[in-house]
């Protein structure tokens, strides 16, 4: 079976600091993988390198059988990688519904001229996008906020909205950057169920960067542990829990 994503020995240096120093991973289809590590370990940088936010200094990234190492972000997204952000990044001047329709844009086929004169195709395509967006809104319990602006929503709902927006692009691979940040224990449990649901419903492959161990251990089949840009461990959740290097990185040396 073809692997969804193959990251081969990527490196990134920021002004002398090796943010990512030779990271490699393979993402199997329909699996949930976790990336954990202390603050500043380079987890988000890995996401930024995969999605083309920064150019990679060294190494290769393959999405299926395509080399996406040097592609710009918008092309990578169009190929089928969607992501959420550690610090929520919704579009403040677009309504909740429009925020979802933004991600649907890559699937729209009408041209600029057709838009300008409002061809019938435009209305039809807009309707399709709107119907899909409404589906996702009700799936995430956000339907009554369709017309509001995103930053008027409570924090937990903004997180859900980001997730819904990422799904609108119908990606093959979903990258979740600390989806549980700032959520309370009850919301974390809800989030776990949601992630598992969307994985099975959409046949998605998911990579999660997360600090909540409970969440990572519960939903991930494979976990990669990063520290100072290097991978210090990889394995199943129960293996990671008893790994000495991991315990050392998180808690310090044994006395």
């Amino acid at each position: 079976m073809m692997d969804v994503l193959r990251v081969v020995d990527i490196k990134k240096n920021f002004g002398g600091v090796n943010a990512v120093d030779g990271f490699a991973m393979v993402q199997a289809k329909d699996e949930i993988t976790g990336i954990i590590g202390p603050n500043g370990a380079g987890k988000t940088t890995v996401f930024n390198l995969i999605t083309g936010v920064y150019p990679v200094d060294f190494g290769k990234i393959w999405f299926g059988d395509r080399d996406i190492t040097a592609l710009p972000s918008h092309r990578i997204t169009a190929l089928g990688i969607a992501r959420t952000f550690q610090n929520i990044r919704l579009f403040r001047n677009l309504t909740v519904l429009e925020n979802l329709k933004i991600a649907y844009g890559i699937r729209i086929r009408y041209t600029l001229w057709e838009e300008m004169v409002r061809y019938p195709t435009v209305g039809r395509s807009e309707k399709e996008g709107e119907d899909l967006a409404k589906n996702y809104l009700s799936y995430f319990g956000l339907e009554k906020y369709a017309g509001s602006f995103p930053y008027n929503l409570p924090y937990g709902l903004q997180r859900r909205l980001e997730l819904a927006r990422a799904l609108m692009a119908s990606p093959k691979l979903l990258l979740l950057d600390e989806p549980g940040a700032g959520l309370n224990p009850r919301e974390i449990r809800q989030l776990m169920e949601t992630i598992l649901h969307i994985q099975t419903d959409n046949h998605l492959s998911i990579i999660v960067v997360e600090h909540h161990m409970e969440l990572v251990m519960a939903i991930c089949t494979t976990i990669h542990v990063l520290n100072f840009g290097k991978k210090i461990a990889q394995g199943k959740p129960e293996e990671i829990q008893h790994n000495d290097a991991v315990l050392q990185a998180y808690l310090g040396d044994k006395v």
Partner: protein
Amino acid sequence: MAFYLKVLEITCLQTIFVLGAYLMTGLTGLFSLGQGGFVLIGAYTAAVAYLKFHLAFPVAIALAILVGSVVGFLIGIPTLRLHRDYFLLVTFGFGEMVRAALLHLAQLTGGALGIAGIPQLVGLPMILISIAVITFFIANLKRSRFGRNCIAIRDDELAASLMGIHVYGYKMRVFVLSSAITSYGGALYAFVLMFIEPNLFNWLESAKLIVITFVGGINSITGAIISSVIYYSFGEFFRFIDVWRDVLLAVAVLLVTIFRSQGIFGSWEFSLRRILRRRTKAT
């Protein structure tokens, strides 16, 4: 009466320029002080084509749009990669450069003396129809993918590109479209004023277009049009209070920015369909 008609024509022409600025600054968040450059390019291209090369009037207008768009494209290639403040500075430089170039290319442009003797071929009906058509285009763009993507770029470029939006490509389309609209307005301007000179539209005038867009509400085409009409007609009809009208307008702008930071109209849009729907509901 003729005076008031002229005032009305000029006011409406300014509205075309404001619509061009709305597309850039209001919708996409690109602050350009170079709109004046495109007004001048449009006006001079049309006037020179008509008077010196004896092209037909519609051809001269079309040529003005073409030249404006091509210049917009060429200026856009390097500048649209720049960040906000740098983009502002470069477009400022561009606008002033066009003005200086027109002053010095005296053989073609008449230099500081300008070009006189342009026939008045454009009247109020043509200007109003133009506004209607341009508004129709922009309103359609605003309520489909193009407009949404532009607003997304204005709000957060990085997030926009991760939603699959080609940010640079979109900025380019906006810039060229806005240049085309502005040069078209400039071309009409020449045939309304009957006399053009390089100081017709300097960077201060370009800055006013941005201010008007903001006062009207950056999320509202309706706001841009109405505040433009009020601003320019106010300026003409209140000439008797002299410098005080600038003071008055400045105070108005200040009050709006302090108390209504989203602009007078916020994101409200005039909608014929909504009015009709309400009618049918009432009966």
